[in-house]
């Protein structure tokens, strides 16, 4: 019987709070961008929306306990790290494609680089709360 991973306890609660704020900020920003000036930079604004979805997903997955939630959180944090590195790099070398700031532009510069640090903290926290068998005997041999 595996022990369900508990990501929403202790320091994890602080992590969820920060994620929730970013989920709110990214969702509102993407919402406004898409509603008012989507045609200006559709790709950038769609990526903005993707970032928002990932923050929302990570927030809810981290706030729940259980192996499925843990896996979703892991995927969300991994995609988030990949996203902030990719968009961050693209926004520096191909600034024409990103005329307006998104959460991940220049590695989240407009947000004090928290978008860059957050997925790393998330992944570290997920490693610490990784699902593991309750006692060593349950561990499959070989």
């Amino acid at each position, binding site marked *: 019987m595996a022990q369900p991973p508990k990501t929403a*306890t*202790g*320091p*994890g*609660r*602080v992590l*969820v*709070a*920060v994620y*929730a*704020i970013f989920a*709110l900020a990214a969702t*509102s*920003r993407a919402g*406004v*961008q898409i509603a*008012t000036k989507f045609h200006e930079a559709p790709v950038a604004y769609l990526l903005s929306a993707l970032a928002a979805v990932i923050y929302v997903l990570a927030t809810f997955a981290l706030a729940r306990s259980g192996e499925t939630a843990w896996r979703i959180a892991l995927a969300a944090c991994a995609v988030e790290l990949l996203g902030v590195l990719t968009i961050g790099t693209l926004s520096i070398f191909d600034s024409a494609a990103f005329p*307006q700031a998104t959460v991940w532009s220049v590695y989240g510069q407009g947000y004090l680089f928290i978008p860059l640090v957050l997925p790393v903290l998330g992944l570290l926290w997920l490693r610490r709360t990784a699902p593991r068998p309750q006692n060593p005997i349950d561990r499959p041999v070989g």
Partner: protein
Amino acid sequence: MITGFAITIVACAVLAAVWSFVLSARNREPSKALLGALAAVELLLVVQLIIGVVLLVGGERPGSIATYLAYLIGCLLVLPVGTVWALAERSRSSTAVLGITCVAIPVMVLRLNEVWNGATA
């Protein structure tokens, strides 16, 4: 927007945040006094909403009305939601969660001020 009032909110929220982090560092659960301070900040935010709506009705216009209203109303939700989340499991982390939510307030009020002064998003 009354700039002085916005600065007051920012100052109060920053003080509440610092207080939260100090308490958390000293391994304390959220105290009644701290929760009172958060309630006071929330009250200031409600007053800010009233001032904001009165100014709108009076004919003044921000850079974008939708964004302005979103910030004006949105910043009212942060502290209550954060407090519920913080108090669901009482520990030093709860106090840190309150600090994080307090930090979000000055950011939102500063953005609100930018929108009021003509920024569109």
